[in-house]
Structure formats: structure tokens, C-alpha cells
């Protein structure tokens, strides 16, 4: 908790999304001007993807500005995960282009993703169950490793330096995310909520410019969610990380994000600030109708 307090300057009690929002206002948010001239960290142009007969994504355009928290929402099966999978190169789109920084791709080379400055978490846990928590997080630095296996086995100084550096960073991230008490446990043995957090740690340790989070709070308790929201916000502010966030909890999304894109049946039906989305009749009809009371109630 300590480092979090330092970051947010708040009390040691758990944050709830509403508190975070209040605090953001207190800090004078939003600090990011909404000018179109602001450079995009990530862009999708006319992305389409289908599986057999199922159209997962239909001609999607999406721009993510540097430093913003960009939420993608929509009902189950809307194509949110597919979008992130396309950005991370796991799926290859049928049509369209992906722009990452200055590079344009028709499909993103997954093995270069980390070097392009992108890290992600997964909707379904994708930790390395057989590695300890700290080793999972150290693995997040794998893209930086230069030493050969022989140098590592022989313990040559270059590889030792690399190892110490990665271990140090991993330890700091674990502390930042309040995970140091489990750092030597096997990742697969942790409770679900903590595993989700370890996944965030593994992504953060790479110091990505862009962080893709696929339902980071799914299946969490209210207090776990609040804590996770804090971490996401802190990552965004402390490291100026651009964040693409998929989340079903509308309350959290409304509080955290700068802009929201809404998908339904693979099409983008709305895109705008939380206020605009809240007021959008199409969104309410397609999606928010059910969740409306959550918004009015100020989160779940």
C-alpha cells in the first residue's frame, strides 16, 4: 500500500471508483486537452475479422492518444478481445491496418510486440503456472535479454548484470502492486485476484508505452476491483502509460477512462468521453440499458 499512497497521496483506506473520480477532479483532471492534433499512440483503420461465418469485427476505426486511458466496452461477444488480440498480433485481421507509433502493419508481429512498446494482460489468466511470482515478473523483461544461454550458465558478468537488473525491477513492481509477500509462491497456487495482479506486474515491468488490459477486474471482489483501479490509474500517471482497457464494470470504466469506444456485434456504435457515452441513446439501447442503474448508482 505504501507506494500507492506515495503515488496518489491518499489515505491507506481502499479506494472506490467514486473516490478516485473525486480525487481526479481534485487534481484538476482532465489534464489532457482533447485536440485532434494530439499524437496517436495507436491507431486501427478499417479493421475487419471473421471466424468462419462469425463476423467478430466489422470495419473498426480506433485512435488511442498518447497517455490516455481508452476504454472499450460492449456486450459479450462484441469483439473487444478480438480487437486487443489484433493489436497484439495474436489474430491477423482480414482487412485493415494497425498503426503503432510510427509503424504501420497489416498484421502485428507478435514476437516484436514488446520491443514496439506494447504489453498486455489476458482475459483468461495466462501466467506461467510453474514459475514463481517473481520469476513470472522477471520474464516480463525477456525482450531485453541479450546474453546467450552459455553466458547465463557460466554466469558471465553481462548476463549477471542483466539478471540483477531484471530482478531489481521485478521486485520494485511487486512492491508497487503489494505483491512482495507472495513473490516466491508458484504463480499457479495464488488466488484468482492475485494472479490477475501478477499479470499486471508482468506487463508493467516491461515499461510499455501502451498497456492493453483485457478485463483486468473480471471476477474480483469490490475491494479488489478498487485496488486494481488504483493500480491502473497509477500506472497511467506515474509512468505516463497509454492504456487500452476492456472492462464490463461500467462504473469503473466511467470513472477511469478518458474516452470510451462501444462495440456491438463487431461494429463500433459509439466513441467519446464518458459523458457522451452515458448520454448516447444508441449505446443505452444496445448495452447500457441493463447497466444504467449501476451508473446512476455510482458504480457497482
Amino acid at each position, binding site marked *: 500500500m505504501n507506494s500507492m499512497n506515495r503515488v496518489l497521496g491518499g489515505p491507506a483506506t481502499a479506494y472506490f471508483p467514486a473516490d478516485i473520480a473525486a480525487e481526479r477532479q481534485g487534481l484538476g483532471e482532465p489534464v489532457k486537452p482533447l485536440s485532434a492534433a494530439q499524437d496517436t499512440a495507436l491507431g486501427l483503420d478499417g479493421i475487419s475479422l471473421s471466424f468462419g461465418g462469425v463476423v467478430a469485427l466489422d470495419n473498426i476505426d480506433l485512435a488511442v492518444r498518447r497517455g490516455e486511458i481508452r476504454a472499450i466496452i460492449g456486450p459479450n461477444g462484441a469483439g473487444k478481445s478480438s480487437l486487443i488480440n489484433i493489436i497484439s498480433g495474436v489474430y491477423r485481421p482480414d482487412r485493415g491496418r494497425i498503426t503503432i507509433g510510427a509503424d504501420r502493419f497489416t498484421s502485428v508481429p507478435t514476437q516484436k510486440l514488446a520491443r514496439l512498446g506494447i504489453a498486455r494482460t489476458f482475459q483468461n489468466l495466462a501466467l506461467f503456472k510453474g514459475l514463481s511470482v517473481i*520469476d513470472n515478473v522477471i520474464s516480463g523483461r525477456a525482450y531485453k535479454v541479450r546474453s546467450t544461454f552459455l553466458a547465463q550458465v557460466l554466469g558471465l558478468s553481462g548476463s549477471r548484470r542483466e539478471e540483477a537488473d531484471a530482478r531489481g525491477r521485478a521486485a520494485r513492481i511487486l512492491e508497487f502492486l503489494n505483491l512482495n509477500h507472495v513473490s516466491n509462491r508458484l504463480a499457479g497456487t495464488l488466488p484468482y485476484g492475485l494472479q490477475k495482479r501478477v499479470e499486471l506486474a508482468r506487463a508493467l515491468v516491461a515499461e510499455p508505452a501502451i498497456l492493453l488490459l483485457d478485463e483486468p477486474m473480471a471476477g474480483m471482489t469490490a475491494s479488489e476491483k478498487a485496488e486494481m483501479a488504483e493500480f491502473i490509474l497509477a500506472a497511467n500517471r506515474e509512468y505516463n502509460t497509454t492504456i487500452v482497457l476492456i472492462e464490463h464494470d461500467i462504473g469503473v470504466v466511467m470513472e477511469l477512462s478518458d474516452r470510451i469506444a462501444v462495440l456491438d456485434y463487431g461494429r463500433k456504435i459509439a466513441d467519446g468521453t464518458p459523458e457522451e457515452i452515458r448520454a448516447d441513446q444508441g449505446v443505452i439501447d444496445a448495452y447500457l440499458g441493463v447497466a444504467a442503474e449501476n451508473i446512476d448508482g455510482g458504480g457497482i
Partner: protein
Amino acid sequence: MTVATFEASAPFHIPRWLAPFVVLSFAYIAVPFIGTNYLFEAILLPFLALSLAGVGLNILTGYAGQVSLGSAAFLAVGAFAAYNFNLRIEGLPLIGSIILSGFVAAAIGIVFGLPSLRLKGFYLAVSTLAAQFFVQWALTKFSWFSNDSASGVIDAPSLSIAGIAFNGAVGRYIFSLTIVSLLTFFAYRLVSSQTGRNFIAVRDNETAARIIGVPVLKTKLIAFAISSFIIGVAGVLWAFTYLRTVEPAGFNLDRSFQILFIIILGGLASIRGAFFGAALLVVSPLILSRLGSFLFGDLFNSGVLDMSQRIVLGALIILFLILEPDGLVSLWDRIRKRSVARLNKRKHVGRAAQPTQ
């Protein structure tokens, strides 16, 4: 005062280097003196060679998650390569032949590991059988490999390094023990390095590994190469220190399964596991044959012995998979932990019982 000591006394703790140190000291100093010829020839020499093969396979299958059913092929490659290097290159020291044979095995391992770049799971496991059958066929078919001997039989050369001969049972044991220790240490360092973490990452979640920047293809090929190198050297030990005379038919599918069983029984993804598994696999048939002839007398002939060995081995595999999926190692660790806990308790009880001073 007593209370303070009680609080402060660190729990009984075994440093990590202690166990290998004790085992190695015992193996180098005590065993050569107390061991009988039977112990070396029938137990320790096959145990060492198979343990090393298990270490090699464990790197590939236990750590990197690539199931191989063709380990015996690499044992054979190692044995025949070392034989040929030794035979054909004038003046090459024995240790040179052994290292080179490891490299040959590694190269062939990379070739047969190439399908792993596209195939997964059972498809890959089945494709490793290609190595098994192809190598056995080639060694039998082309008599060049065995210097034109009948049915591909090769004889071990005299074992000497720097003028010191290791041809007696004890000598071969020391020779084998040294190589096994060195390669095991290498393997241990490897699996605890970044490359070792990459192995497990690729095994546990290949997609996630690729996304965080683990070089997946390279990692797989490194696993194939190192695993084959180690298994190849194990093959040299098998042929040169244990059997002394081998033929390609001895490196059959059953041998491959034997090595796979070693790591299942001992514990996947554990270096120690290979030694536990090999011990069980080498010793249990001996016990079984003693027990069988004791219980059933002459009825228990060699055919019956063979068959019951198969049954017992099969049953062991299934039992372990169901009851102790992490193998003997985890059983051992549990027992050790429990006895250490008991020791600590006794220590504390002993302290607490002392009069206050």
C-alpha cells in the same frame, strides 16, 4: 533468557549446497571403497547413465514442455558418434570424442526439433518417433557407423584420460560420475537462468511467452539441442562405461519410454527427479526378481520376470500419475519437510524444558 533464545533460535535449516556436497563426497570417497563389483556393474553404472539421460529429457519435456518419444535415438547417436570419433580421428583424446559426440547429437536434435516450430502436443510427440525409427534404421543399415561389424555391434574403447586408465569397474564409475556431475551442474545452472525461465514460459503458455518477448522458436531449439547433447553424452556413458558392447537394437522404443518413465516417476521439471526416477527404475527390477524367485521359486523364470516387470512398471506409472503427479521428488520433499519440522519441534521442546537461567 530461555524464552529469548527460543524466539531467536533460527529453525533448523539445510543450506542448498549441503545435500549435493554430501552426496558427492559420499559417492567419490566412500562408495569406491565399500562398493562391490555387482553394485557398480549392475546398479551404479546404468543408474548414472540413465540419470543423465533423464536430466537431458527433463530439460526438453519437463521444462520446455516438448514431449519426446525418441530419446533412445539420441543415446544411440551419442554412442555411435563417440565410437567413430575415437576410431577415425587419430590422436583425438577421449574427452574430445565425447564432447564432439554431444555436438553431433545436438545437431541431430535440432533437425528433429524443427517440426516443433510448427507442431504441438501429440503431433510433435508422434513426430519425434521419426527420430527414433530413422536413427535406428540408419545405424543398422549403414555398416560404416559400426566399422562394418556384424549387425552394427560396437565395442567400447579403452577409457583413459591424460594417461590415467578408467577401465576397471571403479574406474568407469568414477569416470561416469564425474561427467554426470558436471553436466548435471550445467543443467542445474541452465534451468535456473533466464533461458530456463523461458523454457517454462514456453511450456506453460506459448502465446503469452511470445507476447512478452520470449524468443519462442529459439528457446525450443535450444531445448532440443541441449537436451540432445546431454542425452548423447549419456549414450556414450551407457555404451562405454556400462555395457561396453552395444548394438542399435538396444536403443529401441522401449529404451525411449524407459527414459520418459524415469522423469515421470522421478518428477517432471526437476533435475533431482531424474536421479530418483533412474534409481527406482534400475533397482526395482532387481528387487522384483529377488522377490519373485523367493516367493515362487522356479516358477518365476526369466519370461515371467520380464512380463511382471512390464506390469509393475506400467502400474507404477499410472499410480504415480494419479497419486503423486510431481513424482518421487515431491514425495521426498514432503517427507523431508515433515522430518525437519519434527526436528525443530524436538529442539524447541528440548529448549523449553531447560530450566530458566
